[in-house]
């Protein structure tokens, strides 16, 4: 295995190295998240004009859509990490997969609630059992299932393996969420942003959306690194490097 993974990647996979690496990067990721988030809020709530059809209600898009992207993006990361954890038994991959789940669940929850708050004035209903909404709800349950299964075992690594299986099986739901607006008739509007081709949105509204997308990406990195660092301390409790950190005054 080591023959095709570069040495630095191998080193980064070792808990003490990753602990330091994540500790250095985390504050920067958080700062970028706050910066891009603040710019996005100003652009989205103040500068962007009202929509000609939806008035000011459309401004929920600036948190709803980035959160929805993150709910799928984080699931994909979790699925890949879970696969690596199951095949190569890399402890760090296990931790990344398991600590991604609560953040993904948070973004999925935000997506559902903000969507509901957007749906009420626009569609006249808080909820409808259509393909997009239902598959996103299933995504939330998958996240909760992964979290629950992980904590259901006395042995954490055994729990991580069981939860990793569920995470991998659940990946099938990610494309279903994404393509649901094309595959089935739905109340939910189609994609606003197209990576390939013309997006159906004016630049005044697009740039705050992209800025918030960056902010949520950076936030995920910051939150994940914080969680992974704590998890590594708990998992490697008996090791010397953890002992040194615990004994140091601030515990940084």
């Amino acid at each position, binding site marked *: 295995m080591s023959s095709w993974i570069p040495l630095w990647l191998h080193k980064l996979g070792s808990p003490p190295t990753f602990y330091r690496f994540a500790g250095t990067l985390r504050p920067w990721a958080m700062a970028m998240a706050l910066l891009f988030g603040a710019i996005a809020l100003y652009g989205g709530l103040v500068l962007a004009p009202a929509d000609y059809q939806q008035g000011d209600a459309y401004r*929920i898009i600036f948190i709803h859509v980035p959160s929805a992207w993150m709910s799928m993006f984080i699931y994909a990361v979790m699925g890949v990490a879970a696969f690596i954890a199951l095949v190569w038994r890399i402890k760090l991959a296990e931790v990344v997969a398991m600590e991604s789940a609560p953040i993904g669940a948070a973004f999925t929850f*935000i997506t559902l609630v903000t969507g509901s708050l*957007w749906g009420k*004035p626009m569609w006249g209903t808080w909820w409808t059992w259509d393909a997009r909404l239902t598959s996103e709800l299933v995504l939330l349950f998958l996240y909760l299932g992964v979290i629950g299964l992980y904590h259901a075992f006395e042995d954490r690594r055994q729990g991580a393996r069981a939860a990793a299986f569920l995470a991998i099986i659940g990946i099938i739901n990610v494309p279903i969420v994404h393509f649901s607006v094309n595959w089935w008739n739905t109340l939910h509007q189609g994609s606003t942003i197209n990576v390939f081709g013309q997006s159906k949105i004016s630049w005044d509204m697009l740039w705050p959306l992209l800025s918030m997308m960056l902010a949520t990406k950076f936030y995920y990195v910051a*939150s994940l690194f914080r969680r992974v660092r*704590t998890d590594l301390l708990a998992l490697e*409790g008996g090791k010397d490097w953890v*002992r040194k950190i615990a004994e140091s005054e601030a515990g940084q």
Partner: protein
Amino acid sequence: MNALQTFFAMGGYGAYVWPAYAVFFIVLIVDNIAPRLRRRRVLRELRARIARQSSRQDRVRQDRANSNSIPTQPSP
């Protein structure tokens, strides 16, 4: 209506827009605080474990110094 009131009214949709933003921030703040508390707890437990281990080692060393026999009281 002044500019600020207009802003908070959100064209009549304020009751939907602001709760949405509130949920976004509250959930992310909770997501931020939870691991901080967990980190503190993990470090506290680690320190307690280290303290227990070192006191046990001290006791064993003392017992060895006092006599050649093994300690009569098993350490907790």
